[in-house]
Protein backbone atom coordinates (compact mmCIF):
# COMPACT_ATOMS: atom_id res chain seq x y z
CA UNK A 1 0.00 0.00 0.00
CA UNK A 2 1.27 3.43 -0.92
CA UNK A 3 0.49 6.17 1.58
CA UNK A 4 0.67 9.63 0.06
CA UNK A 5 0.95 12.98 1.74
CA UNK A 6 -1.71 15.30 0.35
CA UNK A 7 -1.85 18.66 2.10
CA UNK A 8 0.63 20.03 4.62
CA UNK A 9 0.71 23.15 6.78
CA UNK A 10 2.49 24.71 9.71
CA UNK A 11 1.64 27.81 11.67
CA UNK A 12 4.31 30.33 12.52
CA UNK A 13 6.47 28.94 15.34
CA UNK A 14 7.38 31.21 18.24
CA UNK A 15 5.96 33.07 21.21
CA UNK A 16 2.36 33.33 20.02
CA UNK A 17 0.78 35.04 23.00
CA UNK A 18 -2.27 36.28 21.11
CA UNK A 19 -3.45 32.88 19.94
CA UNK A 20 -5.07 30.05 21.94
CA UNK A 21 -4.08 26.38 21.55
CA UNK A 22 -7.50 25.68 20.03
CA UNK A 23 -7.11 28.43 17.43
CA UNK A 24 -3.53 27.41 16.71
CA UNK A 25 -4.59 23.81 16.05
CA UNK A 26 -7.51 24.94 13.90
CA UNK A 27 -5.27 27.12 11.76
CA UNK A 28 -2.93 24.19 11.02
CA UNK A 29 -5.76 21.70 10.38
CA UNK A 30 -7.74 23.99 8.07
CA UNK A 31 -4.63 25.04 6.15
CA UNK A 32 -3.61 21.40 5.65
CA UNK A 33 -7.13 20.50 4.50
CA UNK A 34 -7.17 23.45 2.08
CA UNK A 35 -3.80 22.40 0.72
CA UNK A 36 -5.07 18.85 0.21
CA UNK A 37 -8.18 20.04 -1.61
CA UNK A 38 -10.34 17.99 0.76
CA UNK A 39 -13.20 19.00 3.05
CA UNK A 40 -13.42 17.93 6.69
CA UNK A 41 -16.17 15.39 5.88
CA UNK A 42 -13.76 13.54 3.57
CA UNK A 43 -11.40 12.82 6.47
CA UNK A 44 -11.89 9.46 8.22
CA UNK A 45 -9.96 10.13 11.44
CA UNK A 46 -7.90 12.71 13.30
CA UNK A 47 -4.63 11.87 15.11
CA UNK A 48 -3.27 14.52 17.48
CA UNK A 49 0.32 14.55 18.73
CA UNK A 50 0.61 16.53 21.93
CA UNK A 51 2.60 16.18 25.15
CA UNK A 52 1.79 18.92 27.65
CA UNK A 53 -1.86 19.93 27.32
CA UNK A 54 -2.89 17.84 30.30
CA UNK A 55 0.03 18.86 32.51
CA UNK A 56 0.17 22.57 31.70
CA UNK A 57 -3.32 23.44 30.55
CA UNK A 58 -5.34 20.88 32.53
CA UNK A 59 -6.91 19.97 29.20
CA UNK A 60 -7.23 16.30 28.31
CA UNK A 61 -9.58 14.82 25.71
CA UNK A 62 -7.79 16.69 22.93
CA UNK A 63 -9.12 14.46 20.15
CA UNK A 64 -12.70 15.50 20.77
CA UNK A 65 -11.79 19.11 21.47
CA UNK A 66 -10.04 19.52 18.15
CA UNK A 67 -12.40 17.51 16.00
CA UNK A 68 -15.09 19.91 17.22
CA UNK A 69 -13.19 22.64 15.37
CA UNK A 70 -13.64 20.65 12.16
CA UNK A 71 -17.39 20.34 12.68
CA UNK A 72 -17.47 16.58 12.14
CA UNK A 73 -17.88 13.48 14.33
CA UNK A 74 -14.99 11.35 13.15
CA UNK A 75 -12.82 9.19 15.44
CA UNK A 76 -10.07 11.28 17.01
CA UNK A 77 -7.07 10.25 19.10
CA UNK A 78 -4.47 12.10 21.14
CA UNK A 79 -1.10 10.34 21.00
CA UNK A 80 1.64 11.08 23.52
CA UNK A 81 5.29 10.13 23.47
CA UNK A 82 6.99 13.23 24.91
CA UNK A 83 8.77 15.22 22.18
CA UNK A 84 8.13 12.38 19.71
CA UNK A 85 4.34 12.73 20.07
CA UNK A 86 4.06 14.10 16.52
CA UNK A 87 6.05 11.26 14.98
CA UNK A 88 4.07 8.70 16.98
CA UNK A 89 0.76 10.26 15.89
CA UNK A 90 1.81 9.92 12.25
CA UNK A 91 3.00 6.34 12.82
CA UNK A 92 -0.40 5.43 14.29
CA UNK A 93 -2.22 7.14 11.44
CA UNK A 94 -0.09 5.25 8.91
CA UNK A 95 -0.82 1.95 10.69
CA UNK A 96 -4.56 2.60 10.64
CA UNK A 97 -4.43 3.20 6.89
CA UNK A 98 -2.36 0.04 6.37
CA UNK A 99 -4.97 -1.88 8.36
CA UNK A 100 -7.67 -0.59 5.97
CA UNK A 101 -9.47 0.92 8.95
CA UNK A 102 -9.35 4.43 7.45
CA UNK A 103 -8.49 5.70 4.00
CA UNK A 104 -7.66 9.34 4.67
CA UNK A 105 -6.42 10.77 7.96
CA UNK A 106 -5.55 14.19 9.28
CA UNK A 107 -2.50 14.23 11.57
CA UNK A 108 -1.89 17.25 13.76
CA UNK A 109 0.96 18.16 16.09
CA UNK A 110 0.29 20.97 18.54
CA UNK A 111 1.93 22.49 21.60
CA UNK A 112 1.32 25.72 23.49
CA UNK A 113 4.20 26.32 25.87
CA UNK A 114 4.82 30.05 26.30
CA UNK A 115 1.65 30.63 28.32
CA UNK A 116 3.61 29.19 31.25
CA UNK A 117 6.68 30.17 33.26
CA UNK A 118 10.06 28.64 32.52
CA UNK A 119 10.26 26.60 35.75
CA UNK A 120 6.75 25.22 35.14
CA UNK A 121 7.88 24.16 31.65
CA UNK A 122 11.13 22.66 32.98
CA UNK A 123 9.08 20.70 35.47
CA UNK A 124 6.44 19.61 32.93
CA UNK A 125 9.01 18.44 30.38
CA UNK A 126 10.61 16.25 33.04
CA UNK A 127 7.39 14.23 32.99
CA UNK A 128 9.07 12.54 30.02
CA UNK A 129 11.89 11.35 32.24
CA UNK A 130 11.94 8.88 35.12
CA UNK A 131 11.23 9.24 38.82
CA UNK A 132 14.94 8.74 39.55
CA UNK A 133 15.88 11.58 37.22
CA UNK A 134 13.27 13.93 38.68
CA UNK A 135 14.32 13.14 42.25
CA UNK A 136 17.95 13.79 41.27
CA UNK A 137 16.95 17.33 40.33
CA UNK A 138 17.88 16.60 36.73
CA UNK A 139 16.35 18.61 33.89
CA UNK A 140 16.19 17.77 30.18
CA UNK A 141 19.13 20.00 29.35
CA UNK A 142 20.83 18.27 32.31
CA UNK A 143 20.26 14.78 30.96
CA UNK A 144 21.53 15.78 27.50
CA UNK A 145 24.44 17.57 29.17
CA UNK A 146 25.45 14.23 30.70
CA UNK A 147 25.43 12.75 27.18
CA UNK A 148 27.47 15.70 25.94
CA UNK A 149 30.05 15.17 28.71
CA UNK A 150 30.25 11.48 27.82
CA UNK A 151 30.53 12.23 24.11
CA UNK A 152 33.15 14.96 24.43
CA UNK A 153 35.24 12.77 26.69
CA UNK A 154 35.02 9.67 24.50
CA UNK A 155 35.69 11.35 21.16
CA UNK A 156 37.78 14.36 22.24
CA UNK A 157 35.19 16.72 20.77
CA UNK A 158 35.08 20.33 22.01
CA UNK A 159 32.22 22.65 22.99
CA UNK A 160 33.07 24.71 19.89
CA UNK A 161 32.51 21.63 17.70
CA UNK A 162 29.05 21.19 19.22
CA UNK A 163 28.32 24.90 18.82
CA UNK A 164 28.61 24.44 15.04
CA UNK A 165 25.23 22.64 15.13
CA UNK A 166 23.48 25.76 16.41
CA UNK A 167 25.38 28.00 13.99
CA UNK A 168 24.22 25.88 11.03
CA UNK A 169 20.63 25.62 12.18
CA UNK A 170 20.35 29.35 12.85
CA UNK A 171 21.69 30.00 9.34
CA UNK A 172 19.00 27.68 7.93
CA UNK A 173 16.41 29.45 10.09
CA UNK A 174 17.13 32.73 8.29
CA UNK A 175 15.68 31.09 5.15
CA UNK A 176 12.43 30.00 6.82
CA UNK A 177 9.71 32.61 7.33
CA UNK A 178 7.89 30.31 9.79
CA UNK A 179 10.94 29.94 12.06
CA UNK A 180 11.00 31.32 15.60
CA UNK A 181 14.55 32.66 15.16
CA UNK A 182 15.47 34.09 11.76
CA UNK A 183 18.92 35.41 12.63
CA UNK A 184 22.40 33.96 12.53
CA UNK A 185 24.59 33.19 15.52
CA UNK A 186 28.36 32.65 15.60
CA UNK A 187 30.44 30.07 17.44
CA UNK A 188 31.49 32.80 19.85
CA UNK A 189 27.83 33.81 20.44
CA UNK A 190 27.11 30.20 21.43
CA UNK A 191 30.22 29.99 23.61
CA UNK A 192 29.38 33.25 25.38
CA UNK A 193 25.70 32.44 25.99
CA UNK A 194 24.70 31.67 29.57
CA UNK A 195 25.23 28.16 30.89
CA UNK A 196 22.12 26.01 31.31
CA UNK A 197 23.63 22.63 32.27
CA UNK A 198 27.38 22.33 31.73
CA UNK A 199 28.61 21.98 29.01
CA UNK A 200 25.34 23.04 27.34
CA UNK A 201 24.70 26.75 27.01
CA UNK A 202 21.56 28.66 26.09
CA UNK A 203 22.40 28.62 22.38
CA UNK A 204 22.98 24.85 22.45
CA UNK A 205 19.34 24.41 23.50
CA UNK A 206 16.15 24.52 21.45
CA UNK A 207 13.68 27.15 22.67
CA UNK A 208 10.28 26.97 24.33
CA UNK A 209 7.76 27.53 21.56
CA UNK A 210 4.16 27.58 20.45
CA UNK A 211 3.17 26.05 17.15
CA UNK A 212 1.11 23.54 15.24
CA UNK A 213 1.63 21.52 12.08
CA UNK A 214 -0.69 19.21 10.17
CA UNK A 215 -0.62 16.77 7.27
CA UNK A 216 -3.32 14.89 5.40
CA UNK A 217 -2.34 11.36 4.42
CA UNK A 218 -4.24 8.92 2.25
CA UNK A 219 -4.07 5.43 0.82
CA UNK A 220 -6.37 6.52 -2.02
CA UNK A 221 -4.88 5.20 -5.27
CA UNK A 222 -5.98 8.32 -7.14
CA UNK A 223 -3.44 10.36 -5.18
CA UNK A 224 -0.65 8.81 -7.23
CA UNK A 225 -1.78 10.94 -10.14
CA UNK A 226 -1.01 14.10 -8.20
CA UNK A 227 1.93 16.03 -9.59
CA UNK A 228 5.00 15.91 -7.32
CA UNK A 229 3.39 13.24 -5.15
CA UNK A 230 5.30 12.47 -1.96
CA UNK A 231 4.70 9.22 -0.16
CA UNK A 232 5.70 7.64 3.14
CA UNK A 233 8.13 4.83 2.36
CA UNK A 234 8.79 3.89 5.99
CA UNK A 235 7.37 4.68 9.40
CA UNK A 236 9.26 3.04 12.25
CA UNK A 237 9.24 3.45 16.02
CA UNK A 238 11.54 2.01 18.69
CA UNK A 239 11.94 2.58 22.41
CA UNK A 240 14.58 2.46 25.14
CA UNK A 241 14.82 2.71 28.94
CA UNK A 242 13.15 5.74 30.49
CA UNK A 243 16.33 6.67 32.39
CA UNK A 244 19.58 7.53 30.66
CA UNK A 245 21.67 5.96 33.43
CA UNK A 246 20.14 2.52 32.82
CA UNK A 247 21.62 2.31 29.31
CA UNK A 248 24.81 0.67 28.09
CA UNK A 249 25.80 3.66 25.98
CA UNK A 250 25.49 7.38 26.73
CA UNK A 251 26.84 8.38 23.32
CA UNK A 252 24.36 6.62 21.05
CA UNK A 253 20.58 6.20 21.18
CA UNK A 254 19.54 2.58 20.73
CA UNK A 255 15.96 3.61 19.86
CA UNK A 256 17.20 5.69 16.91
CA UNK A 257 19.59 2.96 15.72
CA UNK A 258 16.83 0.33 15.85
CA UNK A 259 14.08 2.42 14.24
CA UNK A 260 16.33 3.75 11.47
CA UNK A 261 17.81 0.32 10.72
CA UNK A 262 14.29 -1.05 10.35
CA UNK A 263 13.37 1.84 8.06
CA UNK A 264 16.49 1.32 5.92
CA UNK A 265 15.95 -2.44 5.78
CA UNK A 266 12.31 -2.22 4.76
CA UNK A 267 12.93 0.32 2.00
CA UNK A 268 16.34 -0.79 0.77
CA UNK A 269 17.42 2.83 1.19
CA UNK A 270 20.89 3.46 2.59
CA UNK A 271 21.97 6.44 4.70
CA UNK A 272 24.00 7.83 1.79
CA UNK A 273 20.86 7.83 -0.38
CA UNK A 274 19.20 10.44 1.86
CA UNK A 275 19.22 13.88 0.25
CA UNK A 276 17.62 15.86 3.05
CA UNK A 277 16.65 15.20 6.64
CA UNK A 278 14.99 16.86 9.59
CA UNK A 279 16.82 15.94 12.79
CA UNK A 280 15.58 16.23 16.38
CA UNK A 281 18.20 18.74 17.54
CA UNK A 282 16.64 19.51 20.91
CA UNK A 283 20.24 20.20 21.93
CA UNK A 284 23.40 20.58 19.83
CA UNK A 285 24.67 17.24 21.13
CA UNK A 286 21.46 15.55 19.93
CA UNK A 287 22.12 16.34 16.27
CA UNK A 288 25.76 15.26 16.53
CA UNK A 289 24.75 11.88 17.97
CA UNK A 290 21.76 11.56 15.61
CA UNK A 291 23.85 11.90 12.46
CA UNK A 292 26.00 9.01 13.73
CA UNK A 293 23.08 6.81 14.81
CA UNK A 294 21.42 7.37 11.43
CA UNK A 295 24.60 6.35 9.61
CA UNK A 296 25.32 9.77 8.03
CA UNK A 297 28.64 10.10 9.89
CA UNK A 298 31.13 7.74 11.50
CA UNK A 299 31.07 7.38 15.31
CA UNK A 300 32.58 10.41 16.95
CA UNK A 301 32.57 12.43 13.73
CA UNK A 302 29.00 13.74 13.71
CA UNK A 303 29.82 17.12 15.24
CA UNK A 304 33.04 17.46 13.22
CA UNK A 305 31.18 16.76 9.95
CA UNK A 306 28.58 19.39 10.86
CA UNK A 307 31.37 21.88 11.64
CA UNK A 308 32.92 21.07 8.23
CA UNK A 309 29.65 22.01 6.50
CA UNK A 310 28.67 18.49 5.42
CA UNK A 311 25.10 19.02 6.73
CA UNK A 312 24.71 22.64 5.59
CA UNK A 313 22.41 23.83 2.81
CA UNK A 314 24.02 24.46 -0.59
CA UNK A 315 27.31 22.81 0.32
CA UNK A 316 26.75 19.59 2.27
CA UNK A 317 26.10 16.03 1.07
CA UNK A 318 23.30 14.97 3.45
CA UNK A 319 21.52 18.19 4.45
CA UNK A 320 20.21 18.27 8.03
CA UNK A 321 17.49 20.59 9.25
CA UNK A 322 16.85 22.94 6.34
CA UNK A 323 13.88 24.29 8.37
CA UNK A 324 16.30 25.54 11.02
CA UNK A 325 15.61 22.46 13.13
CA UNK A 326 14.30 22.61 16.66
CA UNK A 327 17.01 25.13 17.52
CA UNK A 328 16.03 27.91 15.12
CA UNK A 329 12.59 26.93 13.79
CA UNK A 330 11.41 26.33 17.36
CA UNK A 331 10.31 23.29 19.34
CA UNK A 332 6.62 23.16 20.27
CA UNK A 333 7.18 19.60 21.41
CA UNK A 334 4.05 17.85 20.09
CA UNK A 335 4.21 19.75 16.80
CA UNK A 336 7.85 19.09 15.97
CA UNK A 337 7.44 15.58 14.51
CA UNK A 338 4.75 16.78 12.11
CA UNK A 339 6.62 19.98 11.19
CA UNK A 340 9.52 17.75 10.15
CA UNK A 341 7.19 15.86 7.78
CA UNK A 342 5.86 19.15 6.39
CA UNK A 343 9.40 20.39 5.71
CA UNK A 344 10.57 17.18 4.01
CA UNK A 345 7.38 17.03 1.91
CA UNK A 346 7.99 20.60 0.71
CA UNK A 347 11.61 19.74 -0.04
CA UNK A 348 10.70 16.64 -2.07
CA UNK A 349 8.05 18.56 -3.98
CA UNK A 350 10.58 21.25 -4.80
CA UNK A 351 8.47 23.84 -3.01
CA UNK A 352 10.91 24.82 -0.25
CA UNK A 353 11.80 28.18 -1.82
CA UNK A 354 15.00 29.80 -0.58
CA UNK A 355 16.04 26.71 1.36
CA UNK A 356 15.37 24.18 -1.39
CA UNK A 357 17.78 21.25 -1.48
CA UNK A 358 18.53 20.69 -5.14
CA UNK A 359 17.05 17.54 -6.70
CA UNK A 360 15.90 16.17 -3.34
CA UNK A 361 14.23 12.80 -3.92
CA UNK A 362 14.57 10.96 -0.61
CA UNK A 363 14.10 12.52 2.82
CA UNK A 364 14.20 11.32 6.41
CA UNK A 365 12.73 12.62 9.65
CA UNK A 366 14.17 11.82 13.07
CA UNK A 367 11.84 12.59 15.99
CA UNK A 368 12.96 11.69 19.52
CA UNK A 369 11.14 11.70 22.84
CA UNK A 370 12.71 11.98 26.27
CA UNK A 371 16.43 11.29 26.38
CA UNK A 372 16.08 8.83 23.47
CA UNK A 373 13.36 6.92 25.24
CA UNK A 374 11.37 6.74 22.03
CA UNK A 375 12.26 7.46 18.42
CA UNK A 376 10.05 7.79 15.34
CA UNK A 377 11.81 7.60 11.98
CA UNK A 378 10.05 8.32 8.69
CA UNK A 379 11.44 8.01 5.20
CA UNK A 380 9.66 9.99 2.49
CA UNK A 381 10.12 9.67 -1.26
CA UNK A 382 8.96 11.68 -4.23
Amino acid sequence: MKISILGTATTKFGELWNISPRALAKEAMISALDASGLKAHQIDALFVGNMLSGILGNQANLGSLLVEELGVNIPAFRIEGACASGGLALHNAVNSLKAYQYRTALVLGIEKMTDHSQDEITNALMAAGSDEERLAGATFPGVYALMAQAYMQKYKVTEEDLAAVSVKNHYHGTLNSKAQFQFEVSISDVMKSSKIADPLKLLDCSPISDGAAAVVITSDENSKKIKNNVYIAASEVATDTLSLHDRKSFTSLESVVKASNNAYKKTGIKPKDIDVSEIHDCFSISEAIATEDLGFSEKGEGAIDIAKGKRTLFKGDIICNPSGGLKACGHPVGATGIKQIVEITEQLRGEAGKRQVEKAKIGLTHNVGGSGTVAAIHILRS
Partner: protein
Amino acid sequence: MITSPVKLWRRQKSASSLIGKKGKILHWTIIRVPAKSFVDQAPYPVVIVKVQNGENMIGQLVDWQKEDLKVGQDVVCVLRRLRTEERESIIYYNIKFKPL
Protein backbone atom coordinates in the same frame (compact mmCIF):
# COMPACT_ATOMS: atom_id res chain seq x y z
CA MET B 1 2.31 20.27 43.81
CA ILE B 2 1.92 18.32 47.05
CA THR B 3 3.83 15.04 47.07
CA SER B 4 1.52 12.15 47.83
CA PRO B 5 2.43 10.77 51.30
CA VAL B 6 1.66 7.27 50.04
CA LYS B 7 4.02 7.60 47.09
CA LEU B 8 6.70 8.97 49.39
CA TRP B 9 6.25 6.18 51.92
CA ARG B 10 6.55 3.59 49.15
CA ARG B 11 9.71 5.15 47.72
CA GLN B 12 11.48 5.70 51.00
CA LYS B 13 11.65 1.99 51.74
CA SER B 14 14.43 1.62 49.18
CA ALA B 15 16.39 4.70 50.23
CA SER B 16 17.59 3.41 53.61
CA SER B 17 19.29 0.35 52.11
CA LEU B 18 21.49 2.63 49.96
CA ILE B 19 22.92 4.84 52.73
CA GLY B 20 26.70 4.41 52.98
CA LYS B 21 27.05 2.69 49.59
CA LYS B 22 30.09 3.90 47.68
CA GLY B 23 30.63 4.50 44.00
CA LYS B 24 32.48 6.48 41.33
CA ILE B 25 31.30 9.37 39.16
CA LEU B 26 30.82 8.31 35.52
CA HIS B 27 29.51 11.64 34.20
CA TRP B 28 28.56 15.00 35.69
CA THR B 29 26.80 18.23 34.84
CA ILE B 30 25.87 21.36 36.75
CA ILE B 31 22.18 22.24 36.67
CA ARG B 32 21.82 26.01 36.52
CA VAL B 33 18.16 26.24 35.44
CA PRO B 34 16.24 23.76 37.60
CA ALA B 35 12.61 22.83 38.11
CA LYS B 36 10.75 24.97 40.63
CA SER B 37 11.26 22.82 43.73
CA PHE B 38 15.05 22.81 43.24
CA VAL B 39 15.47 26.53 42.50
CA ASP B 40 16.92 27.40 45.92
CA GLN B 41 19.69 24.79 45.53
CA ALA B 42 20.91 25.86 42.06
CA PRO B 43 23.50 25.68 40.72
CA TYR B 44 24.07 22.08 41.76
CA PRO B 45 25.78 19.09 40.15
CA VAL B 46 23.88 16.02 38.97
CA VAL B 47 26.01 12.93 38.49
CA ILE B 48 25.68 9.42 37.13
CA VAL B 49 27.45 7.12 39.57
CA LYS B 50 28.54 3.53 39.19
CA VAL B 51 27.71 2.12 42.62
CA GLN B 52 29.69 -0.74 44.25
CA ASN B 53 27.12 -3.34 43.24
CA GLY B 54 27.69 -2.43 39.58
CA GLU B 55 24.42 -0.58 39.15
CA ASN B 56 24.26 2.97 37.75
CA MET B 57 22.42 5.64 39.71
CA ILE B 58 21.63 9.28 38.99
CA GLY B 59 21.65 11.80 41.82
CA GLN B 60 22.58 15.20 43.12
CA LEU B 61 26.12 15.82 44.39
CA VAL B 62 26.23 17.71 47.71
CA ASP B 63 29.02 19.25 49.80
CA TRP B 64 31.07 19.60 46.63
CA GLN B 65 34.07 21.60 45.52
CA LYS B 66 34.98 22.28 41.91
CA GLU B 67 37.77 19.66 41.99
CA ASP B 68 35.23 16.95 42.90
CA LEU B 69 33.63 17.28 39.47
CA LYS B 70 35.67 14.69 37.64
CA VAL B 71 35.16 11.26 36.18
CA GLY B 72 36.23 8.57 38.64
CA GLN B 73 35.66 10.72 41.75
CA ASP B 74 34.73 8.53 44.74
CA VAL B 75 31.36 9.32 46.30
CA VAL B 76 29.14 7.90 49.02
CA CYS B 77 25.33 7.74 49.30
CA VAL B 78 23.94 10.03 52.00
CA LEU B 79 20.39 10.86 53.07
CA ARG B 80 19.45 14.51 52.52
CA ARG B 81 16.41 16.74 52.32
CA LEU B 82 15.40 16.44 48.71
CA ARG B 83 13.90 19.76 47.64
CA THR B 84 11.69 22.63 48.72
CA GLU B 85 8.20 21.30 49.26
CA GLU B 86 4.89 23.15 49.40
CA ARG B 87 3.89 24.17 52.93
CA GLU B 88 1.38 21.33 53.18
CA SER B 89 3.79 18.67 51.90
CA ILE B 90 5.77 16.18 53.93
CA ILE B 91 9.47 17.01 53.85
CA TYR B 92 11.05 14.53 51.48
CA TYR B 93 14.41 12.92 52.24
CA ASN B 94 16.25 11.00 49.56
CA ILE B 95 19.65 9.64 48.55
CA LYS B 96 22.24 12.14 47.31
CA PHE B 97 25.97 11.70 46.75
CA LYS B 98 28.81 13.22 48.73
CA PRO B 99 32.45 13.29 47.53
CA LEU B 100 34.90 11.14 49.50
